[in-house]
């Protein structure tokens, strides 16, 4: 069997005085799309943040192996260069940093890391414009400071645009669908699907089964109070929508 892109084993983590993740197990292999659903505060973003390397969390147990490497040992920038990408639930506005400049810097960091020559300004612009077309991104996204003054939906779209440019091996989308109107949702989902390859994978965090009509997951996991209490195929999302978390969780607690 091929090496997993991500293997999370019994991961426990929290912040001072509070346990948030209570033993997560999850294996993601190349070509797979996984969806994680769960009520507010169950730990979805915490999981995503820990994978991306945000500090402020105490890892109290378990391990995370990313493409054969100990992920938790790497700095956030090293993870990104190794092909891990987090589409933020709340993308950060960075006034004064031009989007093109930022994206070119990020892109070239990754190329350098892979031993590829950096693109100059002209080459980068040609490349980036082609990516913009895929996602129907307005030209002025590039001219404005990073996320600055963007609407909620624009910010989400910008995350996916960055993903299209950086071509990650593992993309983690943290509620990229919330705040998007139906057309934008379709464009974003279409874009995500276009970027799907046999050698990469996606972890999609969402509250809505609606997104999963467009990005069809191979696996759906229910995260509840810091644990994955159920996993299944795409039909689990439908079941969740129908019955709500309480019922599902209840059933999980009492194995059939």
């Amino acid at each position, binding site marked *: 069997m091929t090496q997993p892109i991500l293997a999370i084993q019994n991961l426990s983590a929290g912040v001072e005085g509070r346990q948030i993740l209570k033993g997560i197990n999850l294996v993601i292999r190349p070509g797979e799309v996984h969806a994680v659903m769960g009520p507010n505060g169950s730990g979805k973003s915490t999981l995503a943040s820990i994978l*991306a*390397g*945000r*500090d402020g969390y105490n890892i109290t147990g378990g391990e995370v192996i990313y493409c054969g490497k100990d992920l938790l040992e790497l*700095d*956030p*920038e090293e*993870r*990104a*260069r190794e092909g891990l*990408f*987090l589409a*933020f639930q709340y*993308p*950060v*506005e*960075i*006034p*004064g*940093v031009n989007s093109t400049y*930022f994206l070119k*810097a*990020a892109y070239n*960091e*990754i190329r350098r*890391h892979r031993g590829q020559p950096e693109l100059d300004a002209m080459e980068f612009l040609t490349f980036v414009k082609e990516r913009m077309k895929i996602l129907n991104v307005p030209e002025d996204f590039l001219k404005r*400071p*990073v996320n600055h003054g963007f609407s909620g939906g624009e910010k989400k779209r910008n995350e996916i645009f*960055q993903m299209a440019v*950086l071509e990650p091996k593992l993309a983690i989308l943290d509620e990229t669908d919330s705040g998007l109107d139906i057309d934008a949702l379709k464009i974003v989902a279409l874009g995500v699907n276009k970027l799907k390859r046999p050698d990469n994978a996606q972890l999609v965090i969402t509250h809505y089964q609606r997104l999963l009509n467009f990005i069809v997951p191979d696996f759906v996991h229910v995260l509840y109070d810091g644990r994955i209490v159920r996993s299944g195929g795409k039909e689990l999302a439908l079941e969740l929508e129908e019955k709500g978390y309480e019922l599902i969780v209840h059933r999980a607690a009492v194995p059939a």
Partner: protein
Amino acid sequence: MVTMETKPAVKPNQPTMENGPYLEKFEQFEKSAKGPAWVLAARKAGISHFTELGFPTLQDEDWRFTNVAPIAKLPFKPVLEPTRDGFTAKELGQFTFAGLAGSKLVFVNGHFAPKLSSVAELPDGVKVMSLGAALASDTALVEKHLFRHARADTNAFTALNTAFFQDGAFIHLPAGKIVAEPIQLLYVSTANENGTTAHPRNLIVAEQGSQVTVIESFVSLSDAAYFTNSVTELVAGDNAVVEHLKFQDESQQAFHLATVAAHFDRASNVVTHSIALGAKLSRTNIYATLAGEGLECILNGLYLTRGEQLADHYMIVEHAQPHGASHEYFNGILADKSKGVFHGRILVRPGAQKTDAKQTNKNLLLSDDATANTKPQLEIYADDVKCTHGATIGQLDDEAIFYLRARGIALEKARRMLIHAFAGEIIDRVRCEPLREELNKVVWDRLEQNEQVTVNR
């Protein structure tokens, strides 16, 4: 948020300095001083205001955070004769803006240096010359404006400048004239003794509908604790469009005091920038009077300090007429044990309805030992106005750093990007492109020299 603060009525009565050297020097200088009688009268009034006022102290509300005692303690050595240092135009090449096209007037220790200066071809009637020369050739025109905007009776440094100024620039644009290329005023200090004092005095008048860009650049070839005490009066007539940039890059030992007293008429559009990089202690006063209706002005500034530098900006924006907009943006980047001070007062006169006044002061502390003092003051006597102010003092935004790192950008680079961005917010408001590019370069270089970038981690 709007807070009201009124100016304390009592002024501490405290001449801390010996008036002797100043008055004595003035009495000597007065004997040889040239120029029209009205100028001499202003000089006399200047020295008497100065003796009355004395140097401000920390008890003075407007000087709470900036101690000028080191200036008062300096020996007072006004440069009363042009310096014969014989340095060449070539040496000017090292200074920022050296490559800029357009007219350039150079002043060495407060005296006009004609050989180092060059005036480009100008539209008919436009004057770009030394104030000393203009006092002889264009007396009436100069008299109409000089001393009318910068007040010697309330500001000791303006008083001192008025008494002792030797020269400066005179720029006059008749109605409708446009000078496309920026006019550069370069003030070079070559002082080799502590206390050497230059008092540049400038008058810039852009009549109705004219357009001009003026740079005042203060630089030095000196390591001495010299003192620059400059005053600029700036008048923008109806519909005039003016960009004014003050660039202070004095030596690290120097003391720099500057006043820009500006008067804006109806529907004018003025942006004035103040960039403070040098000097041990610098203070820039900007007094802007919005004297006409429906005008718009921007006061924009950036200060970078390190070591034990102090950079102080003090401004009073006075809305005297309705429908005026003023926007103040000042950012400070403070490293080591340095200090940044911002004091912004917005005064809305009765009847100045529909005033739109906005003020922001943001400070980025790159070290635990750096300090920022910021004091907004709103005094509003009209009821239909929009006045806002905001101040922040903080470190780099951790969220933004994480965001950049999560895209593959290294911590150190992420921090630098954010620091540059913080400076860039201000530099981006410079409209004149070659000027903006030069500024970008010099500010970038200075920030790169900063070793304090990683200190907060």
